[in-house]
Every structure is written in structure tokens, then in C-alpha cells.
């Protein structure tokens, strides 16, 4: 295979990685790293360097579109970035102290556990079940197009069914930071309000996710999405879109280090960057349209793939 053919294969793989990554709030490394290491037997160092480029590309191209709409919660992203970036730096600094195999194994187990939790919690989540949301009879409202009455009604319905998360301590912090918001769900055809809960717990989990990024050189969106979806009660779509923005900032904190060390090969990362940019630009258009249930299923599938990869690395 010559360089032109290799570039085309990498470009094609990256279009897929970018489309999936921008939908799921992941960096796309879970598609690119196995292709580079398992198919082309590339040194893991260069594979991680290439993966970091994919994370930055997914984040920028994916967020560029959704940040302007209502789906990305920028206040949540900025606030949680405090914990992920500090965590990433901590992880990078302490990484020589740990055995990578133990870390990979542990990470695989954490992912398995969060996958099980997502499946268990799923039936309880009103905000992600478009069928039941329609039963609230809130008419489809465009941003700024209607009075507060319908929204207040819908908000009451959400709070009542999710055990009134606004009453918790995390809810108070979320109110102080004005994190609560709403997004327009095209698939459900209505505006979905949500109340952010357990902000402190979310911040701690984000620190751990950031640390995993720094330790293992991955985007760790696969931990960030469950942290927002499960712990903070943020709807699935908002979680993936917000994770999309966060992973770019976490990656930037380590990417320059990789570049300076010479871990980023332009003829591997170049086609990956172009492919991911294209894939993420197209993929992010579907985020508002996809059903949250389908998004969750797709995310769980990706989570399983990553968990198996990590456990395998821990064993071999």
C-alpha cells in the first residue's frame, strides 16, 4: 500500500469517526486508534498523537454548529472545564507513577459499570423519552415564541417525575450559576426544559474524567457523557453536545505537548483531521434530529466497544 492509498483509507475511516464522535460527544479515538494499531501496527505513541488531533477536530467542527443553537449548554461546559483541565494536568503529571495496564483495566471496569447504570436508569428518564414528553401536551414552541405558561407546566412535569432534583444541594449551586436551561428537540418536536442537579458531584466526576484523559491520552468523552446524563440529570442530547465542547478543551491541554514531542505525524494526522472535520460537520447536523433513545443506544454500543478495548489492553 502506498502513501496515497493509506491517506485515502485513513480519510474514509475518519469521516465515520467524526460523524459518530460528534453525535455521541466522543473524540472518535475509539475508531481511529484500533485501526492504526491493530490494522497498521502503528506505535501506540503515534496513534495517540493522531487521536488527539481527531478529538480537537471533532470538538471544533461538531461544536461550531451546535453551540449557536440551544443544544450545547455553554455555561455547564465552561464550569465543568475547570475540573477536566485541572484533572488532565494532574493525570499527565502523575502518570509515571502508575502501571498503565492496571489503569486500562480499571478504566474498562468503570465504563462497564456506567453502562449498566445507564441501562438501569433509562426507563426512569422522562427527558429522554419523547413519547412521554408529548403526553405533557406542551405545544412545540420556538425559542422566544411563546409565553412562560406552557414551559412552566412542562418544567413542573419534569421536576415532579425526576424526584425534584432542584431541591438538592447541587440544585442550589446550579441555580446560583444559572445552569438550568432548555433545548429544542426536533425529533420530539418540542422544547425540553431541564434542571441541573448534583453540580458538585458532577464536578468531582469531571475531575476524574480529566485525570483519565491525562493518564491514558484519550478524550474520555465516554466518561463525561454518563457523568452529565446520570449524575447531573442533563438530557442525553445536551450531554453529548456539551461533552463535544469539553473534550476539545481537555485535548488542547495535552495536544501541544504531543506535538512538541513529535508524536503527531503530519501524513497520518493530516488525512485524519480532514476526514474528521467533514464527518463531524455532517454528523452534528443530525444531533437535533435523532431520537434521544436511539442516541442512547448508539452511545451504549460505543461504550461497550471502548470498554472491551480498555479491558483487552489491561490484560495483554
Amino acid at each position, binding site marked *: *500500500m*502506498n*502513501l496515497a*492509498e*493509506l491517506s485515502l483509507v485513513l480519510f474514509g475511516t475518519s469521516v465515520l469517526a467524526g460523524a459518530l464522535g460528534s453525535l455521541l460527544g466522543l473524540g472518535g479515538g475509539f475508531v481511529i486508534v484500533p485501526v492504526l494499531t491493530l490494522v*497498521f*501496527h502503528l506505535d501506540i505513541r503515534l496513534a495517540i498523537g493522531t487521536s488527539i*488531533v481527531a478529538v*480537537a477536530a471533532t*470538538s*471544533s467542527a461538531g*461544536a*461550531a*454548529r451546535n*453551540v449557536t443553537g*440551544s443544544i*450545547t*449548554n*455553554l*455555561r*455547564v461546559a*465552561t464550569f465543568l*472545564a*475547570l475540573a477536566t*483541565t*485541572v484533572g*488532565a*494536568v494532574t493525570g*499527565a503529571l502523575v502518570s509515571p507513577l502508575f502501571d498503565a495496564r492496571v489503569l486500562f483495566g480499571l478504566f474498562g471496569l468503570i465504563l462497564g459499570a456506567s453502562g449498566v447504570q445507564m441501562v438501569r436508569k433509562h426507563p426512569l428518564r422522562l427527558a429522554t423519552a419523547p413519547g412521554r414528553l408529548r403526553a405533557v401536551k406542551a405545544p412545540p414552541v420556538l*425559542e*422566544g415564541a411563546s409565553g*412562560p405558561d406552557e*414551559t*412552566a407546566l412542562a418544567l413542573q412535569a419534569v421536576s415532579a417525575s425526576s424526584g425534584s432534583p432542584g431541591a438538592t444541594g447541587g440544585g442550589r449551586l446550579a*441555580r446560583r450559576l*444559572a445552569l*438550568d*436551561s*432548555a433545548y429544542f428537540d426536533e425529533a420530539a418536536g418540542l422544547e425540553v*426544559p*431541564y*434542571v441541573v442537579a448534583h453540580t458538585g458531584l458532577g464536578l468531582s466526576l469531571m475531575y476524574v474524567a480529566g485525570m483519565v484523559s491525562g493518564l491514558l491520552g484519550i478524550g474520555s468523552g465516554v466518561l463525561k457523557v454518563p457523568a452529565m446524563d446520570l449524575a447531573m440529570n442533563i438530557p442525553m442530547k445536551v450531554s453529548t453536545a456539551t461533552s463535544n*465542547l469539553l473534550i*476539545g*478543551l481537555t*485535548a488542547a*491541554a495535552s*495536544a*501541544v*505537548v504531543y*506535538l*512538541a514531542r*513529535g508524536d*503527531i505525524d*503530519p*501524513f497520518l494526522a*493530516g488525512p485524519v*483531521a*480532514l476526514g474528521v*472535520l467533514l464527518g463531524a460537520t455532517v454528523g452534528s447536523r443530525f444531533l437535533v434530529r435523532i431520537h434521544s433513545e436511539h442516541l442512547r443506544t448508539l452511545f451504549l454500543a460505543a461504550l461497550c466497544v471502548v470498554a472491551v478495548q480498555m479491558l483487552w489492553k489491561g490484560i495483554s
Partner: protein
Amino acid sequence: MTGPTTPTAHAYGARTPPWPRGVRAAVGRVLRAGVAVSAATLLAGYVVALVSDPGMFGSHAVEHGHLVARAVFPHSLAAIWDGIGRGRGEAIIVAGLLVLLLTPVAGLVAAAVAFARRRDWLFAAISATVLSVILGSFVIGWLA
């Protein structure tokens, strides 16, 4: 437009966009610009590489399922700058990658500025703190 922390905005908190539209638009503009500049630079690098060294793309990159090791590529700022000056395709590609890696950080700078202009000092301080952590990691990275 009322700020997101006013009592009125909170009473209908569910309808309040995550940030005022202007702030989100500013971040979106910076991200789109970064993506466009990076993609254009990457493509330009490929065109230059194809014109100046077409034989390279025909060279064997994978043999028996293994990638063939290549010569070192530019990765210090001086080497990238020098390579661009001499019209080296791979240096232009690395420059495009650097723009891409810094695009999320540029988005954060736009957010910090937009917050400060709207006198949302709490979130201006939060974004400035995140920015200083990232810049600190750059310094650590270059020194380590």
C-alpha cells in the same frame, strides 16, 4: 437582552438559553473560522506536497501490514516556520494541525471576552481560570 442571572430570567429558567445568544454566536464564529482556516491550510499543504514531491505519495507506506517508518517531521515552532518558508508541504500540514488544536482554546478566549463585555464577571473569571490552566499546561509541556 436580560442577563441569565436576573430573577426574571431564573423564574423562567427553563427558557433561558445557556448563554445570551450573542455570546454563543461569538464562540460559534471563532470555532467555524478556526475549522475553515485549518482545513484550508491542510489542503494547501497537500497541494504543495503533491506538486513539489509527487513521488512521495507513490512510495510504500505499508508493508506486510506494518507502517514504514518515515523521516522525522517538523514539530518545533522554529522548524514549522522554517519549513513553510522553504515551501515544504509537511510543514504547512503541521501548521494546519496546530491551528486545529488551538481552535477550542480560541473559542474559550472568545467566551471569556464576551462574558466580560456583558459584565458576567463570575463566568468571565471561570473561563479565564480554565484558560490559565490550559496555558499553564502548554508551559509545562514545553519545559518537560
